[in-house]
């Protein structure tokens, strides 16, 4: 097995999701390599060594500054062919999905997505994924090399192993069409706390909050817990909370250590985005809300009373 992991970066750090995939890949392939593609990324290449990379390829070029997929496909396509990697893994993101899809076409390679685990069996690499609204689990494979895999966010913890990576710079040759799309503006939303896909703790508000103002009590709870605030489709559609915080089929798929839903009914569209959370706690005044069927701990009650009390208890504990 010769494995390459796409090390997506944002600013001067490698994304947590990519490091998690790297750490997992290092368990399956001790000689795993990573690739960093961007501008001014040389300095952060060595960080990947601590998460298991034996080698990091660096494509550093001003033309690669904007997080656009197609120039990255050019770099990856050539690298995979030159080095003969048989497996290329990505931590799922908006950028990584477009890169992986483009690379699959470029190399005529198989791409499996939504993978929540990987193992090496007698027949080689096997991916685990759920399908059809998580009503069925599937073992998926590849019939040829290179094998491409997009790993569902939050599947693997980035475990530091403390190694060192050799860094090798690679050349950049871009296709004419790959540079046609250009970044005009990156208006990055102010992120209060970690982004919802990276947060270990998510406090999620649904329609049961009753009003957009009530998100403030969830923000206070998330803040004392060291987590982030997420939302549901119903709430985003009503303009109560921004779309980037939306969990579910049309939003983000999250897998935090703790998901705490307040006024969230747990409709299937939402469930598919959060049911792999390690611990699920629900507060809802409707005893028949579907969320109680898959919560580890559910309280039938008024979130306006329970949430502020819980915030105080956590505050006292931390004080």
């Amino acid at each position, binding site marked *: 097995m010769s494995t390459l992991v796409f090390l997506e970066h944002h600013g001067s750090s490698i994304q947590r999701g990519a490091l998690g995939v790297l750490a997992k890949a290092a368990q399956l392939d001790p000689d795993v390599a990573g690739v960093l593609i961007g501008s001014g990324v040389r300095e952060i290449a060595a960080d990947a060594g601590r998460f298991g990379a034996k080698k990091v390829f660096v494509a550093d070029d001003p033309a690669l500054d904007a*997080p*656009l*997929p*197609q120039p990255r*496909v050019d770099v990856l396509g050539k690298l995979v062919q030159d080095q003969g990697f048989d497996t290329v893994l990505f931590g799922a993101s*908006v950028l990584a*999905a*477009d890169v992986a*899809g*483009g690379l699959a*076409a470029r190399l005529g390679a*198989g*791409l499996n*997505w*939504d993978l929540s685990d990987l193992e090496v069996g007698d027949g080689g690499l096997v991916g685990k994924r759920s*399908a059809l609204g998580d009503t*069925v689990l*599937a*073992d*998926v*494979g*590849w*019939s040829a090399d290179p094998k491409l895999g*997009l790993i569902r966010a939050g599947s693997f913890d980035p475990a530091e192993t403390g190694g060192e990576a050799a860094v090798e710079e690679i050349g950049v040759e871009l*296709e*004419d*069409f790959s540079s*046609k*799309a*250009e*970044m*005009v503006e*990156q*208006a*990055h939303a102010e*992120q209060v706390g970690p982004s919802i896909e990276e947060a270990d*703790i998510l406090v999620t508000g649904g329609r049961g909050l009753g009003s957009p103002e009530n998100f403030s009590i969830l923000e206070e709870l998330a803040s004392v*817990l060291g987590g982030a605030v997420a939302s549901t489709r119903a709430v985003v559609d009503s303009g109560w909370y921004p*779309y*980037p915080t939306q969990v579910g*089929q*049309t939003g*983000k798929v999250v897998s935090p*250590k*703790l998901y705490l839903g307040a006024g969230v009914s747990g409709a299937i569209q939402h469930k598919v985005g959060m049911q792999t959370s390690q611990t*699920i706690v629900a507060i809802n005044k409707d005893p028949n809300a579907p969320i109680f069927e*898959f*919560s*580890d*701990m*559910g*309280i*039938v*009650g008024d979130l306006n*009373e*329970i949430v502020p*009390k*819980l915030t*105080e208890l*956590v505050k006292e504990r931390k004080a």
Partner: protein
Amino acid sequence: MKIAVCVKEVPDPGPNRRIDPGTKRMDRSGDRSLNQYDLHAVEQALRLKEAEGDGEVVLISMGTSRALDSIRKGLGMGADRAVLVSDDAAAGSDLVATATVLAAALQAESPDLVLFGQQATDGDGAVLWAAVADKLRMPVVSQISELEVGGGQATAKRQTEFGYDTIRAPLPAVLAVADSLNEPRYPSLKGIMGAKKKPQEVKSLADVGVDAGDAGEAGSRTTVIGLYPPPSRGETIKIEDDGSGAQKIFDFLLERKLV
């Protein structure tokens, strides 16, 4: 402007969907409809055509021969015609095989713009546009929540994990739209009646110039090895709040070392 919209017939969302344990493919024998996310792409194509006052909207699809039943909904909304690539040798196509077939069908149309919806509800894939764009050697922008097209270029705002990017690309381009971009119109009765008379072409792989070995299972590079029921989540506790609800949650979080 000629706009091609890639659409897909999918099994109706809900508990009746299943993967055939024998073929390990999606069971497409039950109730089917046009992938709901594709409706947003059709809607956007119609709005662009209407704004320009001229042009053509062509639906491009790959599927079973019966898929036209679902695709006709897009015609009912106002699309001008449909091209369906349907071939027994295309069944079981994975991403690369599907991209090969769609790219070939698109190439024959030479559109100024290729639109996709944000994902398919059956395979949950959200990568096909990137593969098709690579085959067509066109720029691609995905997850678009605001779009302006004019002067031979597209300017798109899209959401990422970090906020909003604004990306500009010259036409022809491949664009994938988010469902927050618009509210798809319902086909009018007149539209539904008229849809049956609109051109609906069914093409074979040979018609679009794709070798049978590059489509279907022969052209695919991924496999489904096995299918299993999901594990149950185990014990659930549900307590009526008697004033101690917050304390109970707090104790539970402490026990699980989450605070």
